[in-house]
Protein backbone atom coordinates (compact mmCIF):
# COMPACT_ATOMS: atom_id res chain seq x y z
CA UNK A 1 0.00 0.00 0.00
CA UNK A 2 2.78 2.39 1.00
CA UNK A 3 4.63 1.55 -2.18
CA UNK A 4 1.46 2.09 -4.24
CA UNK A 5 0.92 5.46 -2.59
CA UNK A 6 4.53 6.39 -3.19
CA UNK A 7 4.23 5.57 -6.89
CA UNK A 8 0.93 7.37 -7.16
CA UNK A 9 2.48 10.42 -5.53
CA UNK A 10 5.46 10.32 -7.90
CA UNK A 11 3.22 9.87 -10.92
CA UNK A 12 0.89 12.66 -9.87
CA UNK A 13 3.73 15.05 -9.17
CA UNK A 14 5.22 14.29 -12.59
CA UNK A 15 1.88 14.89 -14.32
CA UNK A 16 1.47 18.14 -12.41
CA UNK A 17 4.94 19.30 -13.44
CA UNK A 18 4.29 18.45 -17.07
CA UNK A 19 0.99 20.26 -17.07
CA UNK A 20 2.48 23.29 -15.35
CA UNK A 21 5.29 23.38 -17.89
CA UNK A 22 2.70 23.34 -20.66
CA UNK A 23 0.91 26.29 -19.04
CA UNK A 24 3.96 28.30 -18.17
CA UNK A 25 3.97 29.79 -21.64
CA UNK A 26 7.57 29.06 -22.42
CA UNK A 27 6.65 26.16 -24.60
CA UNK A 28 4.25 25.61 -27.44
CA UNK A 29 3.07 22.35 -28.88
CA UNK A 30 4.12 21.54 -32.45
CA UNK A 31 0.58 22.36 -33.61
CA UNK A 32 0.70 25.71 -31.80
CA UNK A 33 4.07 26.48 -33.39
CA UNK A 34 2.65 25.67 -36.81
CA UNK A 35 -0.28 28.04 -36.26
CA UNK A 36 1.95 30.80 -34.87
CA UNK A 37 4.22 30.39 -37.87
CA UNK A 38 1.30 30.89 -40.28
CA UNK A 39 0.56 34.29 -38.75
CA UNK A 40 4.01 35.84 -39.29
CA UNK A 41 4.18 38.81 -41.64
CA UNK A 42 7.10 37.10 -43.38
CA UNK A 43 4.62 34.45 -44.57
CA UNK A 44 2.86 37.05 -46.71
CA UNK A 45 3.84 36.38 -50.29
CA UNK A 46 4.41 39.06 -52.92
CA UNK A 47 1.39 41.02 -54.10
CA UNK A 48 -0.71 38.86 -56.38
CA UNK A 49 -0.62 39.93 -60.03
CA UNK A 50 -3.46 42.22 -61.05
CA UNK A 51 -3.99 41.63 -64.77
CA UNK A 52 -7.25 43.63 -64.80
CA UNK A 53 -5.17 46.76 -64.06
CA UNK A 54 -2.25 47.04 -66.46
CA UNK A 55 -0.72 49.91 -64.42
CA UNK A 56 -1.06 48.13 -61.07
CA UNK A 57 2.71 48.04 -60.57
CA UNK A 58 3.62 51.19 -62.53
CA UNK A 59 5.38 53.70 -60.24
CA UNK A 60 4.17 56.67 -62.33
CA UNK A 61 0.60 55.45 -61.97
CA UNK A 62 1.10 54.99 -58.22
CA UNK A 63 2.43 58.55 -57.96
CA UNK A 64 -0.55 59.92 -59.89
CA UNK A 65 -2.83 57.80 -57.71
CA UNK A 66 -1.24 59.28 -54.59
CA UNK A 67 -1.86 62.81 -55.89
CA UNK A 68 -5.50 61.99 -56.61
CA UNK A 69 -5.87 60.21 -53.25
CA UNK A 70 -4.97 63.37 -51.33
CA UNK A 71 -6.67 65.91 -53.65
CA UNK A 72 -9.86 67.41 -52.18
CA UNK A 73 -10.61 68.67 -55.68
CA UNK A 74 -11.82 65.12 -56.31
CA UNK A 75 -15.23 65.90 -54.77
CA UNK A 76 -18.44 67.75 -55.41
CA UNK A 77 -17.67 70.63 -53.05
CA UNK A 78 -13.87 70.60 -52.94
CA UNK A 79 -13.61 69.34 -49.35
CA UNK A 80 -13.33 65.55 -49.59
CA UNK A 81 -10.40 63.40 -50.70
CA UNK A 82 -9.85 59.65 -50.22
CA UNK A 83 -7.49 60.75 -47.45
CA UNK A 84 -10.34 62.47 -45.61
CA UNK A 85 -11.45 59.07 -44.30
CA UNK A 86 -8.31 57.05 -45.12
CA UNK A 87 -5.98 59.16 -42.99
CA UNK A 88 -2.31 58.56 -43.62
CA UNK A 89 -1.24 58.93 -39.97
CA UNK A 90 -4.13 56.77 -38.69
CA UNK A 91 -3.53 53.51 -40.61
CA UNK A 92 -5.57 55.01 -43.46
CA UNK A 93 -8.82 55.01 -41.43
CA UNK A 94 -10.64 57.70 -39.44
CA UNK A 95 -11.42 56.38 -35.92
CA UNK A 96 -15.15 57.00 -36.48
CA UNK A 97 -18.01 54.49 -36.22
CA UNK A 98 -19.40 55.69 -39.57
CA UNK A 99 -17.31 57.32 -42.29
CA UNK A 100 -17.96 61.02 -42.96
CA UNK A 101 -17.47 62.58 -46.35
CA UNK A 102 -19.94 65.15 -47.60
CA UNK A 103 -22.47 63.28 -45.48
CA UNK A 104 -22.42 60.31 -43.12
CA UNK A 105 -22.23 56.79 -44.57
CA UNK A 106 -23.56 53.62 -42.97
CA UNK A 107 -20.24 51.76 -42.69
CA UNK A 108 -16.91 52.06 -40.87
CA UNK A 109 -13.85 53.18 -42.90
CA UNK A 110 -11.48 50.25 -43.48
CA UNK A 111 -7.70 50.58 -43.10
CA UNK A 112 -5.69 50.01 -46.30
CA UNK A 113 -2.45 48.17 -45.48
CA UNK A 114 -2.07 45.14 -47.75
CA UNK A 115 -5.69 45.25 -48.87
CA UNK A 116 -4.50 44.44 -52.39
CA UNK A 117 -3.96 40.82 -51.26
CA UNK A 118 -7.69 40.19 -50.87
CA UNK A 119 -10.15 39.20 -53.61
CA UNK A 120 -13.16 41.27 -52.43
CA UNK A 121 -13.50 44.92 -51.41
CA UNK A 122 -15.78 46.84 -49.04
CA UNK A 123 -17.25 45.18 -45.95
CA UNK A 124 -19.69 43.26 -48.13
CA UNK A 125 -17.29 42.52 -50.98
CA UNK A 126 -19.41 44.32 -53.58
CA UNK A 127 -16.32 45.09 -55.69
CA UNK A 128 -13.90 42.55 -57.12
CA UNK A 129 -10.85 44.75 -57.64
CA UNK A 130 -9.12 47.54 -55.82
CA UNK A 131 -9.49 49.87 -58.81
CA UNK A 132 -13.22 49.24 -59.06
CA UNK A 133 -13.52 49.78 -55.31
CA UNK A 134 -11.85 53.18 -55.57
CA UNK A 135 -14.59 54.34 -57.96
CA UNK A 136 -17.44 53.65 -55.52
CA UNK A 137 -16.89 56.45 -52.98
CA UNK A 138 -16.11 58.99 -55.74
CA UNK A 139 -19.72 58.86 -56.96
CA UNK A 140 -21.42 58.18 -53.62
CA UNK A 141 -23.42 61.29 -52.63
CA UNK A 142 -22.42 60.82 -48.96
CA UNK A 143 -18.71 60.49 -49.71
CA UNK A 144 -17.03 62.49 -52.51
CA UNK A 145 -20.38 63.24 -54.13
CA UNK A 146 -18.85 63.77 -57.59
CA UNK A 147 -19.66 62.29 -60.97
CA UNK A 148 -17.52 60.69 -63.66
CA UNK A 149 -17.91 63.51 -66.19
CA UNK A 150 -16.74 66.07 -63.63
CA UNK A 151 -13.80 63.82 -62.64
CA UNK A 152 -12.75 63.44 -66.27
CA UNK A 153 -12.78 67.25 -66.62
CA UNK A 154 -10.89 67.68 -63.35
CA UNK A 155 -8.15 65.29 -64.44
CA UNK A 156 -7.93 66.97 -67.84
CA UNK A 157 -7.56 70.34 -66.15
CA UNK A 158 -5.08 69.43 -63.40
CA UNK A 159 -3.34 66.19 -64.31
CA UNK A 160 -3.52 65.87 -68.10
CA UNK A 161 0.22 65.56 -68.72
CA UNK A 162 0.78 62.89 -66.07
CA UNK A 163 -2.41 61.07 -67.04
CA UNK A 164 -1.56 60.99 -70.74
CA UNK A 165 1.98 59.76 -70.11
CA UNK A 166 0.49 56.70 -68.37
CA UNK A 167 -2.80 56.07 -70.15
CA UNK A 168 -2.46 57.81 -73.51
CA UNK A 169 -4.49 60.72 -74.86
CA UNK A 170 -7.52 62.00 -72.98
CA UNK A 171 -10.71 62.06 -75.05
CA UNK A 172 -12.24 65.28 -76.31
CA UNK A 173 -14.28 66.63 -73.40
CA UNK A 174 -15.53 69.93 -74.83
CA UNK A 175 -19.26 70.24 -75.14
CA UNK A 176 -19.94 67.69 -72.42
CA UNK A 177 -22.28 68.64 -69.56
CA UNK A 178 -20.49 69.73 -66.37
CA UNK A 179 -22.11 66.98 -64.32
CA UNK A 180 -23.30 63.66 -65.70
CA UNK A 181 -23.31 60.09 -64.45
CA UNK A 182 -25.54 57.01 -64.58
CA UNK A 183 -25.48 56.98 -60.75
CA UNK A 184 -26.02 60.66 -59.92
CA UNK A 185 -28.98 62.92 -59.28
CA UNK A 186 -31.97 62.93 -61.62
CA UNK A 187 -30.42 65.80 -63.62
CA UNK A 188 -27.03 64.06 -63.80
CA UNK A 189 -28.61 60.82 -64.99
CA UNK A 190 -30.63 62.68 -67.62
CA UNK A 191 -27.50 64.51 -68.76
CA UNK A 192 -25.66 61.17 -68.95
CA UNK A 193 -28.35 59.59 -71.11
CA UNK A 194 -28.15 62.54 -73.49
CA UNK A 195 -24.44 61.93 -74.20
CA UNK A 196 -23.83 59.63 -77.14
CA UNK A 197 -22.69 56.14 -76.34
CA UNK A 198 -19.17 56.40 -77.71
CA UNK A 199 -18.42 59.47 -75.61
CA UNK A 200 -19.94 57.81 -72.53
CA UNK A 201 -17.55 54.91 -73.03
CA UNK A 202 -14.64 57.34 -73.28
CA UNK A 203 -15.64 59.00 -70.00
CA UNK A 204 -16.03 55.60 -68.34
CA UNK A 205 -12.53 54.69 -69.50
CA UNK A 206 -11.06 57.85 -67.92
CA UNK A 207 -13.02 57.12 -64.74
CA UNK A 208 -11.71 53.52 -64.66
CA UNK A 209 -8.15 54.82 -65.17
CA UNK A 210 -8.56 57.14 -62.17
CA UNK A 211 -9.41 54.04 -60.13
CA UNK A 212 -6.46 52.15 -61.59
CA UNK A 213 -4.02 54.92 -60.62
CA UNK A 214 -5.45 55.12 -57.08
CA UNK A 215 -5.24 51.31 -56.81
CA UNK A 216 -1.59 51.39 -57.96
CA UNK A 217 -0.91 53.78 -55.06
CA UNK A 218 -2.89 51.69 -52.57
CA UNK A 219 -0.92 48.60 -53.55
CA UNK A 220 2.14 50.28 -52.04
CA UNK A 221 0.56 50.54 -48.55
CA UNK A 222 1.84 47.67 -46.44
CA UNK A 223 1.90 46.41 -42.87
CA UNK A 224 4.98 46.87 -40.77
CA UNK A 225 6.57 44.17 -38.65
CA UNK A 226 5.21 44.05 -35.11
CA UNK A 227 6.38 42.70 -31.75
CA UNK A 228 4.29 39.61 -32.47
CA UNK A 229 6.22 38.96 -35.70
CA UNK A 230 9.56 39.17 -33.90
CA UNK A 231 8.26 36.85 -31.15
CA UNK A 232 6.84 34.38 -33.69
CA UNK A 233 10.05 34.31 -35.74
CA UNK A 234 11.95 33.34 -32.58
CA UNK A 235 9.38 30.66 -31.65
CA UNK A 236 9.49 29.11 -35.10
CA UNK A 237 13.31 29.22 -35.23
CA UNK A 238 13.49 27.68 -31.75
CA UNK A 239 15.33 30.71 -30.35
CA UNK A 240 14.59 32.58 -27.16
CA UNK A 241 12.87 35.88 -28.04
CA UNK A 242 15.02 38.90 -27.24
CA UNK A 243 14.48 42.61 -26.65
CA UNK A 244 10.93 43.78 -27.32
CA UNK A 245 10.12 40.35 -28.80
CA UNK A 246 9.91 38.91 -25.26
CA UNK A 247 6.24 38.27 -24.45
CA UNK A 248 4.80 38.61 -20.96
CA UNK A 249 3.00 35.63 -19.43
CA UNK A 250 -0.29 37.42 -20.13
CA UNK A 251 0.55 37.98 -23.80
CA UNK A 252 1.49 34.33 -24.22
CA UNK A 253 -1.75 33.29 -22.56
CA UNK A 254 -3.62 35.55 -24.97
CA UNK A 255 -1.81 34.09 -27.97
CA UNK A 256 -2.62 30.56 -26.83
CA UNK A 257 -6.27 31.48 -26.42
CA UNK A 258 -6.27 33.19 -29.83
CA UNK A 259 -4.98 30.14 -31.66
CA UNK A 260 -6.76 27.71 -29.33
CA UNK A 261 -9.85 27.75 -27.19
CA UNK A 262 -11.14 31.18 -28.21
CA UNK A 263 -11.17 30.06 -31.90
CA UNK A 264 -10.16 33.52 -33.16
CA UNK A 265 -7.74 31.98 -35.66
CA UNK A 266 -10.55 30.14 -37.40
CA UNK A 267 -11.33 33.32 -39.35
CA UNK A 268 -8.46 35.64 -38.38
CA UNK A 269 -5.86 33.41 -40.04
CA UNK A 270 -2.79 33.88 -42.18
CA UNK A 271 -0.27 36.72 -42.03
CA UNK A 272 -2.96 39.40 -42.42
CA UNK A 273 -5.17 37.81 -39.74
CA UNK A 274 -8.08 37.49 -42.14
CA UNK A 275 -9.56 34.70 -44.25
CA UNK A 276 -10.81 37.32 -46.77
CA UNK A 277 -14.29 35.90 -46.44
CA UNK A 278 -17.64 36.96 -45.00
CA UNK A 279 -19.15 35.84 -41.72
CA UNK A 280 -22.28 36.55 -39.74
CA UNK A 281 -21.01 36.95 -36.18
CA UNK A 282 -24.24 38.30 -34.72
CA UNK A 283 -23.04 41.89 -34.63
CA UNK A 284 -26.01 44.11 -33.63
CA UNK A 285 -27.63 46.39 -36.18
CA UNK A 286 -27.40 50.12 -35.62
CA UNK A 287 -30.70 51.90 -34.87
CA UNK A 288 -31.50 54.50 -37.50
CA UNK A 289 -29.47 52.92 -40.30
CA UNK A 290 -31.21 51.29 -43.26
CA UNK A 291 -31.52 47.50 -43.36
CA UNK A 292 -28.09 46.03 -44.05
CA UNK A 293 -27.96 42.45 -45.35
CA UNK A 294 -24.17 42.43 -45.70
CA UNK A 295 -22.68 40.06 -48.27
CA UNK A 296 -26.16 38.83 -49.26
CA UNK A 297 -26.91 42.18 -50.91
CA UNK A 298 -23.61 42.33 -52.81
CA UNK A 299 -24.05 39.58 -55.42
CA UNK A 300 -26.43 41.39 -57.77
CA UNK A 301 -24.38 44.58 -57.61
CA UNK A 302 -21.15 42.73 -58.29
CA UNK A 303 -22.50 40.96 -61.34
CA UNK A 304 -24.17 44.09 -62.73
CA UNK A 305 -21.12 46.32 -62.17
CA UNK A 306 -19.70 47.55 -65.50
CA UNK A 307 -16.34 47.94 -63.74
CA UNK A 308 -16.12 44.31 -62.61
CA UNK A 309 -13.52 41.84 -63.88
CA UNK A 310 -15.71 40.76 -66.79
CA UNK A 311 -16.55 44.33 -67.84
CA UNK A 312 -15.13 46.29 -70.77
CA UNK A 313 -12.68 48.29 -68.61
CA UNK A 314 -10.77 45.30 -67.30
CA UNK A 315 -7.35 45.00 -68.93
CA UNK A 316 -7.58 41.20 -68.85
CA UNK A 317 -9.85 38.64 -70.46
CA UNK A 318 -12.42 36.51 -68.65
CA UNK A 319 -9.67 34.00 -67.79
CA UNK A 320 -8.60 36.45 -65.03
CA UNK A 321 -12.04 36.35 -63.40
CA UNK A 322 -11.99 33.08 -61.47
CA UNK A 323 -13.16 34.81 -58.29
CA UNK A 324 -16.31 35.99 -60.01
CA UNK A 325 -16.71 32.79 -61.97
CA UNK A 326 -16.58 30.57 -58.88
CA UNK A 327 -18.29 32.98 -56.51
CA UNK A 328 -20.74 31.18 -54.21
CA UNK A 329 -24.10 32.95 -54.40
CA UNK A 330 -25.51 31.48 -51.21
CA UNK A 331 -27.56 34.52 -50.24
CA UNK A 332 -29.33 32.79 -47.38
CA UNK A 333 -26.05 31.95 -45.66
CA UNK A 334 -24.56 35.38 -46.33
CA UNK A 335 -27.23 37.51 -44.64
CA UNK A 336 -25.40 40.02 -42.41
CA UNK A 337 -22.08 38.39 -43.24
CA UNK A 338 -19.24 40.92 -43.34
CA UNK A 339 -15.61 40.62 -44.34
CA UNK A 340 -13.20 39.46 -41.65
CA UNK A 341 -11.03 42.51 -40.93
CA UNK A 342 -7.30 42.22 -40.43
CA UNK A 343 -6.29 42.44 -36.77
CA UNK A 344 -2.92 44.01 -37.47
CA UNK A 345 -3.04 47.43 -35.81
CA UNK A 346 -6.64 46.83 -34.67
CA UNK A 347 -5.88 47.47 -30.98
CA UNK A 348 -5.18 51.15 -31.72
CA UNK A 349 -8.08 51.79 -34.05
CA UNK A 350 -11.38 51.51 -32.23
CA UNK A 351 -14.32 51.48 -32.74
CA UNK A 352 -14.90 47.97 -34.10
CA UNK A 353 -17.15 46.12 -36.56
CA UNK A 354 -18.66 47.24 -39.86
CA UNK A 355 -20.54 50.15 -38.34
CA UNK A 356 -18.34 50.80 -35.31
CA UNK A 357 -20.78 49.02 -33.00
CA UNK A 358 -18.21 48.33 -30.25
CA UNK A 359 -16.10 51.04 -28.64
CA UNK A 360 -13.41 48.85 -27.10
CA UNK A 361 -11.64 45.52 -27.59
CA UNK A 362 -13.15 44.42 -24.27
CA UNK A 363 -16.63 44.89 -25.77
CA UNK A 364 -15.60 42.91 -28.85
CA UNK A 365 -14.32 40.02 -26.75
CA UNK A 366 -17.43 40.10 -24.54
CA UNK A 367 -19.53 39.83 -27.73
CA UNK A 368 -17.58 36.83 -29.01
CA UNK A 369 -17.73 35.23 -25.60
CA UNK A 370 -21.52 35.52 -25.23
CA UNK A 371 -22.25 34.88 -28.94
CA UNK A 372 -25.71 36.46 -29.09
CA UNK A 373 -28.21 35.60 -31.84
CA UNK A 374 -27.87 37.65 -35.00
CA UNK A 375 -30.42 40.41 -35.77
CA UNK A 376 -30.98 38.57 -39.09
CA UNK A 377 -29.49 35.42 -40.57
CA UNK A 378 -27.58 32.98 -38.39
CA UNK A 379 -24.50 33.78 -36.33
CA UNK A 380 -21.59 31.42 -36.84
CA UNK A 381 -20.31 32.03 -33.31
CA UNK A 382 -20.40 29.53 -30.51
CA UNK A 383 -20.05 30.86 -27.00
CA UNK A 384 -16.68 30.47 -25.34
CA UNK A 385 -16.25 30.69 -21.60
CA UNK A 386 -13.45 33.15 -20.91
CA UNK A 387 -12.21 34.11 -17.48
CA UNK A 388 -11.53 37.78 -16.69
CA UNK A 389 -7.85 36.99 -17.01
CA UNK A 390 -8.47 35.29 -20.35
CA UNK A 391 -10.15 38.42 -21.68
CA UNK A 392 -7.27 40.58 -20.44
CA UNK A 393 -4.86 38.13 -22.03
CA UNK A 394 -6.55 38.36 -25.43
CA UNK A 395 -6.42 42.17 -25.30
CA UNK A 396 -2.75 42.02 -24.29
CA UNK A 397 -2.02 39.72 -27.23
CA UNK A 398 -3.91 41.90 -29.72
CA UNK A 399 -1.78 44.86 -28.64
CA UNK A 400 1.33 42.97 -29.77
CA UNK A 401 -0.08 43.25 -33.32
CA UNK A 402 0.34 47.02 -33.25
CA UNK A 403 3.27 49.07 -34.41
CA UNK A 404 4.13 52.07 -32.25
CA UNK A 405 2.35 55.27 -33.34
CA UNK A 406 4.67 57.63 -35.27
CA UNK A 407 4.81 60.09 -32.35
CA UNK A 408 5.80 57.43 -29.81
CA UNK A 409 9.48 57.38 -28.81
Amino acid at each position, binding site marked *: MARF*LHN*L*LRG*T*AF*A*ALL*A*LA*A*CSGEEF*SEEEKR*LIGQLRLSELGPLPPEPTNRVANDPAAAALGASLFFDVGMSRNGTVACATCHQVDRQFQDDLPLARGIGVTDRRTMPLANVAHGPWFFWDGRKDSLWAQALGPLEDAREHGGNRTAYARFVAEHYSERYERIFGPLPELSGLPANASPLGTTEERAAWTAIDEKRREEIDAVFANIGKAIAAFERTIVHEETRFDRFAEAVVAGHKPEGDAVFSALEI*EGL*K*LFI*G*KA*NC*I*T*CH*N*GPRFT*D*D*FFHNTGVPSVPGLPEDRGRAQAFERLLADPFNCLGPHSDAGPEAC*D*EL*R*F*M*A*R*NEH*EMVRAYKTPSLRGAASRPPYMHAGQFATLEEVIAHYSTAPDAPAG*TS*ELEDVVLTDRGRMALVAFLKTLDTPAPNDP
Partner: protein
Amino acid sequence: MRKWLVVAIAIAVVAVAGYFAMHMFPPPPADLDLARSKPSAAGTYVVSIEPEADPIPQGRLHSWIATVKRPEGAAVTDAMLTIDGGMPQHGHGLPTAPQATEHLGEGRYRVEGVRFNMNGWWELRLTIDSSAGQDAVTFNIVL
Protein backbone atom coordinates in the same frame (compact mmCIF):
# COMPACT_ATOMS: atom_id res chain seq x y z
CA MET B 1 2.40 11.88 4.04
CA ARG B 2 -1.33 11.91 3.45
CA LYS B 3 -1.38 15.73 3.49
CA TRP B 4 1.37 15.78 0.87
CA LEU B 5 -0.59 13.42 -1.30
CA VAL B 6 -3.74 15.56 -1.14
CA VAL B 7 -1.77 18.68 -2.03
CA ALA B 8 -0.06 16.95 -4.94
CA ILE B 9 -3.32 15.62 -6.31
CA ALA B 10 -4.95 19.03 -5.95
CA ILE B 11 -2.10 20.69 -7.88
CA ALA B 12 -2.26 18.02 -10.54
CA VAL B 13 -6.03 18.36 -10.99
CA VAL B 14 -5.87 22.14 -11.31
CA ALA B 15 -2.90 22.06 -13.67
CA VAL B 16 -4.30 19.32 -15.88
CA ALA B 17 -7.72 21.01 -16.00
CA GLY B 18 -6.05 24.29 -16.88
CA TYR B 19 -4.00 22.62 -19.59
CA PHE B 20 -7.06 21.08 -21.21
CA ALA B 21 -9.09 24.26 -20.89
CA MET B 22 -6.44 26.04 -22.94
CA HIS B 23 -6.27 23.37 -25.61
CA MET B 24 -9.92 22.65 -26.05
CA PHE B 25 -10.55 23.94 -29.56
CA PRO B 26 -12.87 21.50 -31.26
CA PRO B 27 -10.70 19.03 -33.13
CA PRO B 28 -12.20 17.00 -35.95
CA PRO B 29 -13.31 13.52 -34.83
CA ALA B 30 -10.28 11.32 -34.20
CA ASP B 31 -11.60 8.54 -36.43
CA LEU B 32 -12.34 10.84 -39.38
CA ASP B 33 -11.87 9.05 -42.69
CA LEU B 34 -9.31 11.10 -44.59
CA ALA B 35 -9.02 8.72 -47.53
CA ARG B 36 -8.60 10.46 -50.88
CA SER B 37 -10.02 7.46 -52.73
CA LYS B 38 -13.25 5.68 -51.83
CA PRO B 39 -16.41 4.10 -53.23
CA SER B 40 -19.45 6.34 -53.65
CA ALA B 41 -22.33 5.93 -51.21
CA ALA B 42 -24.24 3.30 -53.22
CA GLY B 43 -21.11 1.72 -54.63
CA THR B 44 -21.71 2.84 -58.22
CA TYR B 45 -18.29 4.48 -58.55
CA VAL B 46 -14.86 4.57 -57.02
CA VAL B 47 -13.73 8.18 -56.80
CA SER B 48 -10.26 9.56 -56.11
CA ILE B 49 -9.36 13.20 -55.59
CA GLU B 50 -6.06 15.01 -55.45
CA PRO B 51 -5.25 18.72 -55.19
CA GLU B 52 -3.30 20.19 -58.09
CA ALA B 53 -0.98 21.71 -55.49
CA ASP B 54 0.07 19.85 -52.36
CA PRO B 55 0.06 21.01 -49.59
CA ILE B 56 -3.36 22.53 -50.14
CA PRO B 57 -2.90 26.32 -50.40
CA GLN B 58 -5.15 27.67 -47.65
CA GLY B 59 -7.05 30.80 -48.63
CA ARG B 60 -6.32 30.60 -52.37
CA LEU B 61 -8.43 29.44 -55.27
CA HIS B 62 -7.06 26.17 -56.58
CA SER B 63 -8.06 23.08 -58.55
CA TRP B 64 -8.44 19.39 -57.82
CA ILE B 65 -8.45 16.40 -60.10
CA ALA B 66 -11.27 13.93 -59.50
CA THR B 67 -10.92 10.48 -61.06
CA VAL B 68 -14.14 8.51 -61.51
CA LYS B 69 -14.11 4.77 -62.16
CA ARG B 70 -16.56 1.89 -61.96
CA PRO B 71 -15.86 -0.56 -59.13
CA GLU B 72 -14.26 -3.02 -61.61
CA GLY B 73 -11.83 -0.32 -62.74
CA ALA B 74 -13.34 1.06 -65.97
CA ALA B 75 -12.92 4.83 -66.34
CA VAL B 76 -16.19 6.80 -66.41
CA THR B 77 -15.82 9.31 -69.21
CA ASP B 78 -19.36 10.70 -69.50
CA ALA B 79 -19.85 11.92 -65.91
CA MET B 80 -21.47 15.19 -64.88
CA LEU B 81 -19.95 16.25 -61.57
CA THR B 82 -21.48 18.72 -59.14
CA ILE B 83 -19.54 19.84 -56.12
CA ASP B 84 -20.58 21.18 -52.75
CA GLY B 85 -19.46 20.81 -49.17
CA GLY B 86 -18.67 22.93 -46.16
CA MET B 87 -17.51 22.84 -42.57
CA PRO B 88 -19.73 20.49 -40.56
CA GLN B 89 -18.53 21.93 -37.25
CA HIS B 90 -19.36 25.49 -38.28
CA GLY B 91 -22.60 24.85 -40.12
CA HIS B 92 -21.60 26.63 -43.30
CA GLY B 93 -20.96 25.67 -46.89
CA LEU B 94 -18.00 26.23 -49.15
CA PRO B 95 -16.91 29.86 -49.65
CA THR B 96 -16.87 29.31 -53.43
CA ALA B 97 -18.91 27.40 -55.98
CA PRO B 98 -16.42 24.95 -57.52
CA GLN B 99 -17.19 23.42 -60.89
CA ALA B 100 -15.95 20.44 -62.87
CA THR B 101 -14.73 22.36 -65.91
CA GLU B 102 -13.00 19.77 -68.06
CA HIS B 103 -12.73 16.05 -68.70
CA LEU B 104 -9.03 15.34 -69.08
CA GLY B 105 -9.58 11.82 -70.35
CA GLU B 106 -9.57 8.41 -68.65
CA GLY B 107 -12.21 9.47 -66.15
CA ARG B 108 -10.12 12.37 -64.84
CA TYR B 109 -12.00 15.63 -64.29
CA ARG B 110 -10.61 19.04 -63.37
CA VAL B 111 -12.51 20.67 -60.50
CA GLU B 112 -11.79 24.41 -60.43
CA GLY B 113 -12.62 27.15 -57.96
CA VAL B 114 -11.97 25.39 -54.65
CA ARG B 115 -10.98 27.53 -51.68
CA PHE B 116 -10.61 26.56 -48.03
CA ASN B 117 -10.47 29.81 -46.11
CA MET B 118 -10.43 28.44 -42.57
CA ASN B 119 -8.49 25.93 -40.49
CA GLY B 120 -10.30 22.76 -39.54
CA TRP B 121 -12.47 20.00 -40.94
CA TRP B 122 -13.94 20.47 -44.41
CA GLU B 123 -16.21 18.21 -46.42
CA LEU B 124 -16.03 18.07 -50.22
CA ARG B 125 -19.07 16.32 -51.71
CA LEU B 126 -19.11 15.14 -55.31
CA THR B 127 -22.34 14.11 -56.96
CA ILE B 128 -21.70 12.03 -60.05
CA ASP B 129 -24.23 11.50 -62.82
CA SER B 130 -23.40 9.24 -65.74
CA SER B 131 -24.99 6.49 -67.82
CA ALA B 132 -24.20 4.23 -64.85
CA GLY B 133 -26.52 6.26 -62.58
CA GLN B 134 -26.34 8.98 -59.97
CA ASP B 135 -24.33 8.57 -56.80
CA ALA B 136 -22.41 10.77 -54.38
CA VAL B 137 -19.28 10.62 -52.32
CA THR B 138 -18.05 12.80 -49.46
CA PHE B 139 -14.39 13.39 -48.74
CA ASN B 140 -13.03 14.80 -45.50
CA ILE B 141 -10.17 17.27 -45.64
CA VAL B 142 -8.45 18.71 -42.58
CA LEU B 143 -6.43 21.93 -42.75
